[in-house]
């Protein structure tokens, strides 16, 4: 059945590898695409389509453009690609800004679109006056200026940051009809550059009694969290740069704590102080907030790594499909426990699965883009993705997740946080007209 094309490479027979038209991921490797048996059935016509209109010379080809700006902005035609804000007038409460994953591709979140949770608005700090102090159970407390930090050996790593409350609206009694931005927009991924915290602790020295450290921001609530000292000795970073430029003000300029894989709130923004201590300080954000109430009335505390998770960004609610034929199902997968091992996709609500292609490089505690070729036959389909990390942790089904956490009791507003660390499989239902809706399956 395989055919040879003119370059002599092999075209794959795109027979389904799982239910409802999922195709072999090797079809994405740049070889020719031939639908096995499709020409006679007409299913493959979307690959070629109707004849194109005659080409015209656009006005932008008939004269100069505009001066190149000192700092480039996205095209004026992309003005819809923005964060959604829950508190645009900065009323006295927290603010959330969500990343529009359904309008992005790849794995790196642009700095202006990185998600933010802020209790006191975007803090504006004069970098020359800012200080970082490290004290407590150290041999010599030290203060660092931003200039001083720039003299230490630097490291870069690509890391996701995810709010502990991301995807909370998917834990609702009824499936909330909202887009990926509203449902999963409180996670982002960037390249962070800075000084490892362990490098600075070498200088201050560590008292053997220290088991935790408190990280505190310079924002309105001087937000603070307790973090196991082992994380400081492992991969914690005082991040100074985000995607190559100084950290964006909404993400902690001039410095933030980066704890790769750990709950977003612990990655303290606008970092000003680190105190080594023997035991957790029991701050508001590790007692009232970021604890998970179980059905038996007890609450889990110290729920640090963000568990393995994935979601489909294309297609997704609001990104409807126009006609039967070939589509690429694509999405994001990540785990706070290491690299992604595999992502499987289902188009029949979990009855059958096939492995998706993982976009290289697959990095530890970073977004991994997965892609899956799909020949939509125009009928109803239920799309799901299921990630497994290299440690073997598998993203749970909704049923398994609810069995552990309890059945949701309400369908609150989409911006409410009724669950933390929600990582169950989400489902997008496609109807016969190509409309994509959030469904439970």
């Amino acid at each position, binding site marked *: 059945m395989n055919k040879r094309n003119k370059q002599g490479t092999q075209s794959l027979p795109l027979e389904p590898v799982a239910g409802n038209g999922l195709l072999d991921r090797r079809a994405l490797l740049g070889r020719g695409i031939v639908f096995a048996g499709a020409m006679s059935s007409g299913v493959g016509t979307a690959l070629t389509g109707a004849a194109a209109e005659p080409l015209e010379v656009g006005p932008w080809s008939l004269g100069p453009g505009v001066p190149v700006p000192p700092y480039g902005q996205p095209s004026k035609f992309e003005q819809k690609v923005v964060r959604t804000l829950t508190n645009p007038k900065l009323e006295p409460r927290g603010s959330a800004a969500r990343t529009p994953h359904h309008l992005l591709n790849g794995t790196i979140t642009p700095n202006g679109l990185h998600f933010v949770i802020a209790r006191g608005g975007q803090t504006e700090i004069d970098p020359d006056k800012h200080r970082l102090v490290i004290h407590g159970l150290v041999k010599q407390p030290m203060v660092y200026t931003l200039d001083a930090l720039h003299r230490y050996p630097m490291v870069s790593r690509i890391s996701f940051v995810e709010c502990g409350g991301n995807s909370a609206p998917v834990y609702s009694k009824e499936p909330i009809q909202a887009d990926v931005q509203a449902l999963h927009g409180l996670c982002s991924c960037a390249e962070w550059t800075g000084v490892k915290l362990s490098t600075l602790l070498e200088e201050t*020295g560590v008292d053997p009694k220290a088991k935790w450290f408190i990280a505190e921001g310079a924002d309105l609530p001087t937000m603070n969290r307790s973090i196991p000292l082992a994380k400081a000795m492992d991969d914690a970073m005082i991040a100074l740069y985000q995607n190559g430029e100084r950290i964006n003000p909404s993400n902690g300029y001039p410095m933030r704590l980066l704890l790769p894989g750990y709950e977003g709130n612990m990655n303290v923004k606008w970092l000003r102080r680190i105190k080594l201590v023997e035991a957790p300080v*029991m701050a*508001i954000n590790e007692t009232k907030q970021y604890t998970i109430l179980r059905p038996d009335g007890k609450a889990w505390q110290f729920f640090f790594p963000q568990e393995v998770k994935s979601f489909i960004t294309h297609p997704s609610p609001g990104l409807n499909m126009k006609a039967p034929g070939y589509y690429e199902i694509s999405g994001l997968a990540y785990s706070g426990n290491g690299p992604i091992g595999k992502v499987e996709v289902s188009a029949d609500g979990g009855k059958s699965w096939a492995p998706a292609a993982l976009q290289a490089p697959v990095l530890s505690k970073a977004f991994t883009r997965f892609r899956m070729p799909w020949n939509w036959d125009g009928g109803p389909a239920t799309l799901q993705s299921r990630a497994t990390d290299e440690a073997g942790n598998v993203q749970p089904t909704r049923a398994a997740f609810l069995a552990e956490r309890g059945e949701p009791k*309400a369908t609150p507003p989409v911006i409410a946080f009724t669950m933390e660390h929600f990582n169950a499989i989400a489902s997008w239902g496609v109807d016969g007209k190509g409309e994509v809706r959030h469904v439970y399956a």
Partner: protein
Amino acid sequence: MSMRRARNAPFALMLVLGLGAANAADAPRFGQPIGPADLAAWDISIGPDGAGLPPGGGTPAQGAEVYAKYACALCHGDKGAGGPSGPLVGGGPLSGGDRPPAKLIGNYWPYATTVFDFTRRAMPWQQPKTLTDDEVYAVTAYILALNKIIGENDVMNAQTLPKVKMPNRDGFVSKYPEKY
């Protein structure tokens, strides 16, 4: 390490060979030492055992005056009954029921020291860190008394506050007890 030393080849070689790498004394040193007095203004951490609590104190009655003076009711309602920023009193059982339980001070928070700590660092929202320590103790006492956790005449200070047993003190378990 000075430039003069850097040009000293045998010395540099010793560093490369590891004589310095594991020794904190040879790590880059660009921090400035600071003593407790000079970092006191930032060292506001308070442990659940009361470590770090400042001198001073206050009663629920004094706290009611603080609550009125700073218009706390605009966000938290009259007597903490709730407003745009949620209530400071109330809270039902944490299991059962047909609605998700609210996690409030009286039914959820495990430590009274956290009430003092968060109030001192973050309240009032428009002018945080402006209350005196006596005012923070007093308004903490007021909130605890509204929740019937302490008596109307109980004084909250560095000795009494950590001894307050919150109703949900034993309601938390570590998710990964083998690690943290």
